């Protein structure tokens, strides 16, 4: 017959996999949502191929398959760019946290030396009042 049922089955399996990932907290809802939308579109096209043919005629693409591939490509590209943005943001956050951890470590070290009596107040670099303000 045709490959459409196969495509729909593949989508169902993928949806099941994403739901499994969600349940085990290995993927955040906001990212899962993107993939659900993509899969929903594929299911619609798999169940009603006519939609694709109609769309292709409407935008003036000769071969409906090419429209499908081209749009898939664009969607995946956008998803990848979005993920790159998220990674960049995470890297910046990690950087800030690493800095704070290092600075806190140093403060603890100075405090311990002071408590042990190894150093006296003012004999080494101590945090000033600005330490309590959060730098971005």
């Amino acid at each position: 017959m045709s490959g459409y049922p196969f495509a729909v089955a593949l989508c169902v399996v993928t949806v099941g996999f994403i739901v499994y990932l969600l349940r085990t907290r290995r993927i955040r809802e906001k990212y899962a949502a993107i993939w659900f939308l993509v899969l929903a579109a594929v299911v619609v096209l798999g169940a009603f191929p006519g939609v694709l043919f109609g769309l292709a005629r409407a935008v003036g693409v000769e071969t409906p398959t090419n429209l499908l591939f081209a749009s898939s490509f664009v969607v995946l590209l956008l998803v990848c760019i979005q993920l790159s943005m998220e990674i960049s943001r995470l890297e910046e956050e990690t950087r800030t946290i690493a800095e704070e951890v290092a600075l806190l470590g140093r403060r603890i070290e100075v405090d311990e030396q002071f408590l042990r009596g190894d150093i006296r107040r003012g004999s080494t670099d101590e945090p000033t009042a600005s330490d309590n303000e959060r730098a971005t």
Partner: protein
Amino acid sequence: MTTPVHLDHQPVNPLIVLPAWNEQEALPSVLQEIRTLMPGIAVLVVNDGSTDATSHVARRLGVPVLDLPVNLGVGGAMRAGFKYALRTGHDAVIQLDADGQHDPRNVETLLQAMASANVDVVIGARFAGVGAYESRGPRRWAMRGLSFVLSRLVGTRLTDTTSGFKLSGPRAVRLFATNYPAEYLGDTVESLVIAHRAGLSIRQVGVEMRPRSGGQPSHSPIRSAIFLLRAGLALGIALTRPATPLAPEVTR
């Protein structure tokens, strides 16, 4: 410890920051040298996620250490250093490489240049034609191109824009503590663009570079070509980024 009152360009309490990544071999002698030459000056080693005894050798010499839990690169290590400086009341930061390439004797040169020229950032520029830094081909073009563009932008002659040997004055410390790129060439080229955009003045002063204590910078043609491309990209992006003004000083 109270933060000293200072003029806008005159640092009174400078801090030498050494970003160090796996430098257990070279670091002790550099630290000893600083101590011998400038016994009174404050020093900080930023251990950039080293896997060797970098942190340990610095501590053994009684030098304050910031231990970054992950490797952030020179730009990342330096921003941590700037934050430390700001929070401990230092009004200037001298970046000095932990591998012994920068001669601690030149720290005084940088400080004097800042005092006399009254600028926010002083770059220790390698003299043209110093043996170890004679580069050819694409790498050289990249250096030349960067110097040319940045000189025009900043309005002063810069010949060595990729030098990490820098003195940042009070205003530069405040700027760099919140805005110092961790990307490739970010700590050198882009930081100069950021400083200029924030209205800071920049000068260079000639210094001698020493050969690094260990390891050799790679100079294959392919690597040089990649360097050229990355330098061009870094500069292009830096020039198109919106300016970040210097935040007003926090009154304590």
